[in-house]
């Protein structure tokens, strides 16, 4: 690797660091400053942008055709899996009797329920 390539790549690393630090700052102030009612969605969107920067530049996926498609396919499978499962559990037929879907069970009620 020649000295110019080294300097250019080093400069690239610092630029990405700057971008990631900026996005981290936005992550930290967003719930207190703006769009407070959409925190979950905003936070995940910022996370996705940070992930894209990390994968493309720090993990050197930019320009990698075969590995890029492999990663893309695997991520598409994960998203498909997410979508199918979330759709399925949205129509969960045992919601009323499921333990994990019990809402705010106080200790007393819970014990009484089991004693019955």
């Amino acid at each position: 690797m020649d000295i110019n390539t080294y300097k250019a790549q080093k400069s690239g690393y610092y630029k990405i660091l700057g971008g990631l630090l900026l996005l981290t700052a936005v992550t930290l102030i967003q719930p207190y400053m703006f769009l407070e009612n959409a925190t979950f969605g905003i936070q995940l969107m910022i996370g996705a942008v940070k992930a894209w920067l990390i994968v493309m530049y720090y993990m050197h996926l930019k320009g990698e055709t075969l590995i890029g498609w492999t990663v893309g396919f695997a991520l598409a499978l994960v998203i498909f899996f997410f979508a199918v499962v979330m759709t399925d559990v949205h129509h969960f037929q045992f919601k009323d009797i499921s333990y994990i879907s019990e809402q705010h069970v106080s200790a007393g009620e819970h014990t009484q329920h089991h004693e019955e």
Partner: protein
Amino acid sequence: MSHEEHGHEYVPEIATARDGKQYEVQGWQGDFYGGKLGFWLFMLTEVMMFGAMFLTLTYYFSLHHDDFIEASSEFSVLLGGTNTVVLLISALTMGLGLLKMRAGDVKGAKLMIYATMILALVFLAIKGVEWTEDYHDGVFLGLPALQAGNPDSRPLGEILFFGMYFTMTGLHGFHIILGIGLMLWLLKRINAGKVTPEHHILHFNIALYWDLVHLIWVFVFPYFYMIGAGHGH
């Protein structure tokens, strides 16, 4: 600057056949692209594993929205945010280390690996402080607050939230510890002349691993620390 100046010449692995002839072992060191592709496939299994956990978390969040927000507001954004920045800088030092290795500066590469290890230990120390505080606050795996059906029980959604928190940050912390071990091994291989500017696939893959650990935290942090930020406490 060349690696010869630092006395780090590549030492090939030699195997002796039954007839006494010696051959150079052609492992992953000699197949950079194959080594890289193989490691990406391994990392995809990690993404699947953590992906399943995030899916579970999302499902529980959809069922117990208010409990999740309430539980999340108890975490220290300062400590979690500090750890986020620590990991971010460690990803930079790891990347710069690889860059220095590729440029022939083996000594500089080793210094960057040491810097990454120190930052990893700082991350673990902060995480240790957080877990200790949680324990003293009565919120820890196995304590009555996180067991359903007793007078000290937290609401079910909070029990699920904290259960997922300790499971996922614990697994992530385990990956940090594994990363430190991998970096120690990498230093050993560099000192033995097995990893050099011409044969640096091991360094490349361990840097990829470290970026993956960082990547997972990029989603763990907002999911646990930020969704409840700005809601009391």
